[in-house]
């Protein structure tokens, strides 16, 4: 496509988008992403289409992805001419008829089924979205298009300012200027480690060895982190645009998008997006007549969490066992096929178009000095608003969990939040004033990680939590190094003894000791983070451990102490699980 043809495409897209903004026509949006589908959204969509066709209603039915309100799925949005868009929650197929009947034909906005109206003022008794607790603390940058556009349409993306940043980079900036801009923005990696992305790009650009590669790490195997998933399912072109800009800046010829096999819909939508880009000529040879060549391949993973680690992802793409390796050399020097490679997280890439469009000055006004920008948090567990929320970095835990997250479900008492997911630590109530930014939670033994927060109420046993996290790390350990492979296994035994009431207080000291050893001598981030949940629980909830050990009492009523016999110990060669089954202690990585 020549630049002129591309401008024509852009105009066509804008033309088509007018239909969405057109107030003459009723629009019905049905949210379709994996969370919505799990709740039955495909049946809802069918029912909506059937209703509209059978009643001969003039309405435009569109699909979108969720804008973050996963707990409301299946979500249907309706905008009638002259009225604001209204979001309705829990619209399973059987409720579609009743809803559409009254809203479209009966002139009743059904405040009883509505969550919020996208207006400044309340509408027919429906609260405005901006007044909801969930929305109030948010600052939407990356999720701005989620819920607004059809994720399967390139036109929608282009009509809402898509690929403008890529054009700007390509036609108005040199690669060095792009890198300088990203560096100045202070963008830090969202995959967990928070490494400055501009520096990574710069060192890959400086390498002589060619060809160079870019990998977008969409593996996200950590339980209860689903922000990358929603970014892929809701707005796949956004991070692909970031990838194109990175390719231009670094001088790469091929990009890989590495997606975990647990994410079939994300793979499907990303593949579709890539195919459309080839069709319009934004991928392939001589992109927009500039002589830039760039290919993108979408590569599926195969269900190993450890393959999300950057060097393991490289082996995974090369069709090998996804095990991390020692560094140096860093991937920027010798990565995929031994060539300079940049590995960035999906959300990191999704930030890039916004930085190029609005400039690094704008970007640094968001968030905090050390962690600029916004971050997408996945909230799950015993909390009301299970789903996504995008807030500026530095928002306090209190605001994040109790305002945007809606607080505890069923009036239960807060016990802990597992911040940063399985590789982070549990934080008790008195730490909720802490800000969410890189390196702020470490003092309390936790981390922001990739922004997946799981909230637990008083019915959760903290020993069980430590056991669970250790089991996860144990079974996902790749087995390459002894401290991680055997250390987590022996911790699992110790924690299980505590759960069973057969431990002594010395076991607690041993746990700390072995944790420190595992952290010190493991090769990659999995081993280095594996004992963190245990240590954080020992630090903040020590009295619960002591209750288990001394009194054989579990205040949450989870541990049954069936094996507790005073002065006696279980054998060390196996672990007794709650189902009283033996888990052999060999490295299988079995799921």
């Amino acid at each position, binding site marked *: 496509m020549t630049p002129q043809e591309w401008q024509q495409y852009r105009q066509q897209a804008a033309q088509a988008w007018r239909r969405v903004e057109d107030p003459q026509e009723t629009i019905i949006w049905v949210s379709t992403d*994996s*969370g919505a*589908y*799990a*709740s*039955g959204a*495909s*049946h809802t969509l069918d029912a909506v289409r059937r209703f509209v066709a059978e009643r001969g209603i003039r309405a435009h039915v569109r699909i979108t992805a969720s804008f973050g309100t*996963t*707990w409301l*799925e299946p979500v249907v949005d309706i905008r009638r001419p002259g009225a604001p868009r209204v979001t309705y929650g829990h619209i*399973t*197929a059987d409720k579609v008829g009743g809803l559409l009947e009254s809203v479209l034909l009966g002139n009743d906005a059904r405040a009883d089924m509505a969550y919020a109206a996208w207006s400044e003022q309340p509408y027919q008794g429906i609260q405005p979205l901006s007044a909801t607790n969930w929305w109030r603390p948010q600052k939407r940058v990356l999720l701005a298009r989620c819920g607004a556009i059809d994720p399967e349409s390139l036109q929608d993306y282009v009509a809402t300012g898509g690929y403008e940043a890529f054009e700007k980079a390509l036609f108005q900036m040199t690669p060095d200027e792009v890198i300088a801009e990203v560096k100045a923005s202070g963008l830090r990696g969202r995959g967990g480690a928070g490494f400055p992305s501009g520096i990574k790009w710069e060192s890959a650009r400086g390498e002589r060895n060619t060809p160079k590669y870019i990998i977008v790490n969409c593996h996200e*195997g950590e*339980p*209860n*982190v*689903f922000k990358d*998933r*929603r970014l892929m399912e809701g707005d796949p072109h956004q991070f692909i645009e970031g990838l194109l800009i990175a390719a231009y800046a670094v001088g790469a010829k091929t990009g890989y998008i590495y997606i*975990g*096999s647990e994410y*079939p819909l994300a793979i499907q939508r990303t593949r579709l997006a890539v195919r459309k880009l080839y069709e319009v000529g934004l991928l392939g040879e001589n992109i927009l007549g500039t002589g830039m060549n760039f290919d993108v*391949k979408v*590569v*599926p993973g*195969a*269900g*190993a*969490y450890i393959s999300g680690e950057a060097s393991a992802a490289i082996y*995974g*793409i*090369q*069709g*090998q*066992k*996804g*095990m991390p390796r020692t560094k140096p050399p860093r991937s920027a020097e010798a990565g995929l096929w031994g060539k300079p490679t940049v590995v960035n997280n999906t959300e990191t890439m999704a930030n890039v178009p916004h930085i190029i469009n609005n400039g690094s000055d704008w970007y640094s006004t968001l968030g905090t000095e050390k962690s600029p920008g916004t971050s997408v948090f996945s909230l*799950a*567990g*015993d909390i009301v608003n*299970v*789903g996504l929320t995008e807030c500026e970095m530095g928002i306090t835990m209190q605001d994040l969990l109790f305002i945007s997250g809606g607080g505890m479900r069923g009036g239960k008492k807060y016990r802990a939040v*597992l911040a940063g*997911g399985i590789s982070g630590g549990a934080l008790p109530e008195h730490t909720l004033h802490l800000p969410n930014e890189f390196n702020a939670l470490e003092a309390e033994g936790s981390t922001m990680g990739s922004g997946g927060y*799981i909230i*637990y109420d008083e019915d*959760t046993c903290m020993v*069980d*939590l430590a056991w*669970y*996290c250790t089991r*996860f790390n144990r*079974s*996902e350990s*790749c087995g390459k190094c002894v401290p991680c492979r055997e250390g987590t296994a022996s911790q699992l035994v110790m924690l299980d003894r505590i759960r069973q009431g057969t431990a002594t207080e010395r076991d607690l000291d041993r746990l700390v000791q072995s944790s420190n050893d595992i952290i010190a001598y493991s090769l990659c981030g999995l081993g280095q983070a594996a004992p963190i949940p245990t240590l954080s629980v020992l630090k903040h909830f020590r009295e619960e451990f002591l209750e288990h050990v001394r009194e054989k009492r579990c205040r949450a009523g989870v541990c049954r102490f069936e094996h507790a016999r005073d002065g006696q110990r279980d054998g060390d060669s196996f672990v007794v699980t709650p*189902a009283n*089954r033996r888990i052999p202690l060999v490295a299988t990585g*079995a*799921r």
Partner: protein
Amino acid sequence: MDNNATKRQFYIGGIEDPWTGSQQDRDRVLSILRGFEGYDPLEALIPALHELQKEYGYIPEEAANIISQEWQIPATDLFGVVTFYADFRTEPRGRNMLWICEGAACYFMGGPQLGQAAQEKLKIEYGETTLDGEWTLRRADFCYGACHLAPLVDLNHTVFGPLSKDELGRLIDNPPKEPEGSHKL
């Protein structure tokens, strides 16, 4: 090849192994491989294994050997990959595939209890297949990104949740063909 067939029958009860070792099967593997022409064999390996597993429900050893020969990938490397990744199975699967989510939300909201109920009802442990070849049971350590439905199970790529033990029991008694209220992922 015939004695192989007996071995397979033994190991998965009454059900027929989808891989018979016939020329037709071998051709099918070759046609999967042809779909990756122009790719670096190593880059194509994992996607090809996924396709093979889609076809047969697992990675038959003979099929893996064909890949190894055709693509000049040492068999040890190839079997290393097959056994490293949790997605790939080396045994035929049951007709129904039941995953119990034990992600960090489902685990604390009743996932293990569902798992225990399923294990007791089907009389197998995680990772095993019933002798009649009807059910394979697995534990999901990942999260389905649908924690609002916790605790949930995934039956033949359809998510059900939140479930009680009894509801799970009824689901196992009557696995729905085209379930309401949920969707193929």
